[in-house]
C-alpha cells in the first residue's frame, strides 16, 4: 500500500503528503476517484458500472467494484460503485466523487448525508442526472443536470443509451482520454455494429457538453501503460481450477456461486472441461466424488444452502479417502437470507459439516488473485491428503471485480501418493506414518480393493458387519486424522500485515483483507501500533499463531457475521482473550468506519 488516508471530517478526504491539517485545507489533488451509478434494477446500472471499470483499467488505472443490488429483476433500488486510482485499491472505499443518478430516487438517496446503506458515503462531488428530473430535495453538492435522454433519443429508441451519455460526462470530469472510453464502448456493443457507433457518438456528446459547461473535478490520476485484468473472485476461482487441471465442474445454480459456474460454462470448450448442471446439489457432489475416485480432477460449488445438501457426501468422501474440492460461496443467511448480500457466517457450517471426525482442509482466499492460487493449491492438497478441501469465499469477493496486474500461471500438479500396478499385497488404506495411503484408480492391474463408507481395515474390508474390531477402528481413525498433523507441519507461515511491532493485532479471514489493511494504515498514520494476522488457510489453524499473538496488548477479530465464528475458533484453539468487531447487515466493511471501530477498542481501558 504505502498510501495513507486521513479522515478529517467524517466524509471528507484529502490527500496529504505526510502532514495532518485541521479543517479544510486542500494540499494537492487526490489520486483516486469513486464513481457510483444509481438506479432501479433493469436501468442498466451494472452495465454502466462495467464500462466505467473497463475504461479505468484500460487507462492503466487500478479499479475495484461494489455491486449493491436486490433479488428482483426490475425496480427496487440498486447501485454500482467503482473506485479507481493510480495505486492499487483493495476495497470499495469511502467517499463519493461522481454520482450518475438514473432516477430521482437515486439522486436524492446518494446526496443525502443521512445515507446508511451498510456504510456507503453520501456524495461530496458532482451529481450527473437527466435534466428532466427537476423536483427533488436539494443538498449541498454540485448538480450537473444534462439533457441525457434528449441526446440519447437522437441516436436510438433504446432509453438505456442515456447512460452512455452520462458516462461520457463522468469521464470528462476527470479528464480521461475519450478514445479509451470509445474503445471500451465499441467492444461492449461490438457485436451490434451500428449500436456501437451510436453509443460512442452519444458518449462523445456527453463528454463535450460537460467540458463546455463544467469544470473538471479535483482528481489527478496518473494513467499508465500497465496491462490490467478485470476479474471477479468467482471467475478467478474458475481460473484457478483450470490451472490445476480440473476437468469436470458440477454446479447447481445458486448466488453467489453462480459466477464461477458461468465462467466454467463459458470456457468449457476452450479448456476442455466437462461442465454440468445436475438436478440438485446431492447429485453435484456425488458426481464430483465419482470423477475424483476414477482419477479425474473434479470440483463442485454452491452457496451455504446447496452446501447443506452436500453434507452427507462430504463425510463419505473423507471416509473413502477420495480427494474432493468444493467451492463454498457464502451469502447472508440463515435460510434464503439476503440472497444478493454478503456475509461470512458459514464457517461453523463448513468446519462442522457431516457426522463423525474426519480430516478436512478449509481455505479462504483474501482477494481475487488468491482465489486463483488457493483454488489451484486446493486440488493439490485434496490429492496429496486424499480428503475434502473446501475453498470459501463470500458474495463480496465472488461478484465484485478487481484489477489484477499479473495472474501467475506457474503451477505444478501434485497427484499425491499413487500405487503402481501389480504392487504386492496392495493395501488401499495402508497404515503409514503421515497417514497417507497409496491411491489407485479403477482398472489398474493387480490393485483390487474395496472402498467403503463403513469403517474398514487396510484392505478396505468392512470391519463393522459381523464382528467389529475395536483395534482396527482405532488404527484407521488415527491414520486418517494423522493426515491433519502432516498438513499442519507443511503449512506455510501465517501471513501478517504490519504486525512486527504491532501492539494490537487484528485477525481477519477471507475477503475482509482490503478493508482491514486500509483501516490499519489509517490507524498507523495516527500513531497507533496496529497490525493484522490474515488467515487464508483457516482450518486447521496454523500453530504459528500461538507465537504471533504472544505479548500483544489486544487481539481484535474482524468478521462479517453475528456470532464471531472465527473469534470462537481462535479462543478455543489458542485460549486467548479477544475482542470482536462484527458486521452482519449484508454489506462489506468500509475502511473508514472499521478504523473508527478498531480505534474505539484500542482506546478502551
Amino acid at each position: 500500500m504505502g498510501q495513507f488516508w486521513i479522515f478529517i471530517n467524517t466524509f471528507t478526504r484529502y490527500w496529504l503528503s505526510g502532514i495532518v491539517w485541521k479543517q479544510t485545507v486542500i494540499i494537492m489533488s487526490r489520486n483516486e476517484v469513486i464513481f457510483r451509478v444509481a438506479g432501479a434494477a433493469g436501468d442498466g446500472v451494472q452495465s454502466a458500472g462495467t464500462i466505467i471499470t473497463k475504461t479505468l483499467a484500460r487507462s492503466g488505472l487500478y479499479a475495484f467494484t461494489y455491486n449493491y443490488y436486490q433479488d428482483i429483476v426490475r425496480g427496487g433500488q440498486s447501485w454500482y460503485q467503482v473506485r479507481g486510482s493510480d495505486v492499487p485499491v483493495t476495497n470499495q472505499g469511502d467517499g463519493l466523487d461522481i454520482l450518475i443518478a438514473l432516477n430521482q430516487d437515486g439522486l436524492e438517496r446518494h446526496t443525502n448525508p443521512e445515507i446508511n446503506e451498510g456504510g456507503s458515503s453520501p456524495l461530496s462531488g458532482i451529481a450527473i442526472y437527466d435534466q428532466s428530473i427537476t423536483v427533488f430535495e436539494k443538498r449541498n453538492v454540485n448538480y450537473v443536470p444534462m439533457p441525457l435522454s434528449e441526446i440519447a433519443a437522437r441516436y436510438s429508441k433504446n432509453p438505456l443509451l442515456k447512460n452512455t451519455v452520462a458516462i461520457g460526462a463522468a469521464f470528462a470530469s476527470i479528464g480521461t482520454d475519450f478514445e479509451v472510453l470509445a474503445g471500451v464502448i465499441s467492444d461492449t456493443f461490438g457485436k451490434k455494429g451500428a449500436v456501437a457507433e451510436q453509443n460512442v457518438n452519444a458518449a462523445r456528446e456527453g463528454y463535450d457538453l460537460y467540458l463546455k459547461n463544467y469544470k473538471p473535478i479535483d482528481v489527478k490520476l496518473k494513467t499508465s501503460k500497465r496491462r490490467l485484468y478485470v476479474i471477479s473472485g468467482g471467475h478467478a476461482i474458475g481460473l484457478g481450477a483450470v490451472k490445476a487441471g480440473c476437468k469436470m465442474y458440477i454446479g447447481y445454480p445458486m448466488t453467489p456461486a453462480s459466477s464461477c459456474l458461468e465462467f466454467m460454462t463459458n470456457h468449457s470448450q476452450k479448456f476442455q472441461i466437462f461442465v454440468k448442471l445436475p438436478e440438485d446439489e446431492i447429485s453435484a457432489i456425488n458426481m464430483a466424488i465419482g470423477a475424483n475416485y476414477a482419477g479425474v480432477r473434479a470440483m463442485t460449488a454452491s452457496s451455504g444452502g446447496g452446501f447443506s445438501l452436500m453434507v452427507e457426501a462430504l463425510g463419505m468422501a473423507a471416509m473413502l479417502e477420495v480427494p474432493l474440492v468444493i467451492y463454498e460461496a457464502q451469502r447472508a443467511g440463515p435460510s434464503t437470507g439476503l440472497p444478493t448480500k454478503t456475509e461470512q457466517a458459514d464457517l461453523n457450517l463448513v468446519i462442522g459439516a457431516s457426522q463423525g471426525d474426519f480430516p478436512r482442509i478449509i481455505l479462504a482466499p483474501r482477494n481475487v488473485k488468491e482465489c486463483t492460487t488457493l483454488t489451484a493449491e486446493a486440488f493439490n492438497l485434496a490429492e496429496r491428503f486424499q480428503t475434502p478441501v473446501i475453498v470459501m469465499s463470500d458474495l463480496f469477493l465472488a461478484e465484485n471485480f478487481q484489477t489484477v496486474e499479473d495472474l501467475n500461471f506457474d503451477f505444478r500438479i501434485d497427484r499425491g501418493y499413487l500405487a503402481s500396478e501389480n504392487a504386492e499385497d496392495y493395501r488401499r488404506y495402508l497404515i503409514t506414518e503421515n497417514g497417507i495411503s497409496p491411491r489407485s484408480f479403477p482398472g489398474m492391474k493387480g490393485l483390487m480393493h474395496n472402498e467403503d463408507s463403513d469403517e474398514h481395515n487396510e484392505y478396505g474390508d468392512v470391519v463393522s458387519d459381523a464382528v467389529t474390531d475395536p483395534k482396527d477402528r482405532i488404527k484407521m481413525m488415527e491414520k486418517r486424522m494423522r493426515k491433519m498433523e502432516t498438513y499442519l507441519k507443511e503449512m506455510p507461515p501465517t501471513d501478517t500485515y504490519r504486525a512486527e511491532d504491532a501492539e494490537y493485532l487484528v485477525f481477519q479471514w477471507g475477503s475482509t483483507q482490503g478493508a482491514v489493511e486500509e483501516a490499519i494504515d489509517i490507524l498507523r498514520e495516527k500513531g497507533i501500533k496496529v497490525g493484522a494476522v490474515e488467515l487464508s488457510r483457516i482450518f486447521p489453524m496454523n500453530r504459528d499463531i500461538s507465537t504471533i499473538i504472544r505479548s500483544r496488548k489486544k487481539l481484535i477479530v474482524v468478521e462479517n457475521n453475528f456470532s464471531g465464528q472465527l473469534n470462537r475458533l481462535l479462543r478455543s484453539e489458542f485460549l486467548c482473550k479477544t475482542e470482536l468487531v462484527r458486521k452482519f447487515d449484508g454489506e462489506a466493511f468500509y475502511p473508514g468506519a472499521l478504523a473508527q471501530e478498531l480505534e474505539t477498542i484500542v482506546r478502551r481501558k
Partner: protein
Amino acid sequence: MPEEVNDMPFSIPREEFMEPGHTACHGCGATLAMRYVLKALGKDTVVSVPASCWAVIPGAMPNRTLNVPMVYTPFAATGASITGLRVAMDILGKEDCNVVGFAGDGGTADIGLQSLSGAMERGHNVFYIMYDNEGYMNTGVQRSGSTPYGAETTTTPVRAERNFKHQQKKVVADLMMAQGVPYVATATVAYPEDLIRKIVNAKKIAGPKFIQILSPCPTGWYFPTEKTIEISRMAVQSGMFPLYEYSNGKLRVTKPSKTISIRDYVSVQDRFMHLDEEDVSNLQSAVDQRMKNLLDRERETSGA
C-alpha cells in the same frame, strides 16, 4: 365456488386474489398462472412456494400481491411442504381448505422431483402446480430438465460450438401420468378458461392433483414482452406443449383448432435463433412422436 360471469358458459371468475404490486418482469407468464389458479380456487387456499421466481415476485416491501396465505419452503421440498400443510389442515378441521404447491420447473423437474413423487404417491388431497418457464429464470436463465431441445441458456451458451441444449424436454406431467396420479393436466396462460376449468375439475377429486402450466418468460426466452400470450398459444398450436387432461385413468388431449409448425414457433424466440433446418426437424420429429404417443394413449384409455 368463486363467482362466475353469466354471459359465457364458463368464464373467468371476477374475484381477484392477486393484486397489483408484484415485481416480476414485464410480460411474465408465471404471474398470470398464479392469478388464474387462485381465481379458480378461491379464498380458502394456502400456497407453498420454493425458491423460484415466485419466491421473489409476490411483492417487495411494503407491497404484497397475494390475498391468500403463502409459505416458503426449501427448494427440494415443495411436495413435503404441502403434505405437512394438508395434514395440519385436516387435524384443524379445515378439510375444505385448498393446499397448493406452486413451484417452478427447476424446483419440480430437477431438485424437487423426489419430493413431488412422494407427495403424489402418499395420496394426500393437494394441488401441485408446476409453472413451467423452461429454465432457472430467477437465478439468471440456467437450463433445467424442462428446458426444451435447442434452447440457449447461460449454461448452454451457443456460440461457435453450437452448445445449445441437446437433450429433449423432460415433461413432468407425463411422468405423473405414468405414476398414476389421479388428476394430471397441462395448461397454459393463453387459454385461461381451459386452465381454470382444469383446476375446477381437479378440485372435485379428493386426492393428489398435478397441473403443469407453461408460463412463457420474455427474459429467458428472449422475446418481446408483449408476445407472451401469442407465444403461449403458439406452443400449443405447434405441438411443443400439448394440452391434455388425465383424470381417473382417462386421457383427453385437446386438439388446437389451428396448427402451426415448429419452425413457426421457434422463429419468434431468440433462444432458438441459432437452430438450423436439421435441428428444427430433429425437434419437429420429437414433438410429432410425443403427440402420437399421447393420441395413442388417449385412444387406449377411452376404449378401456
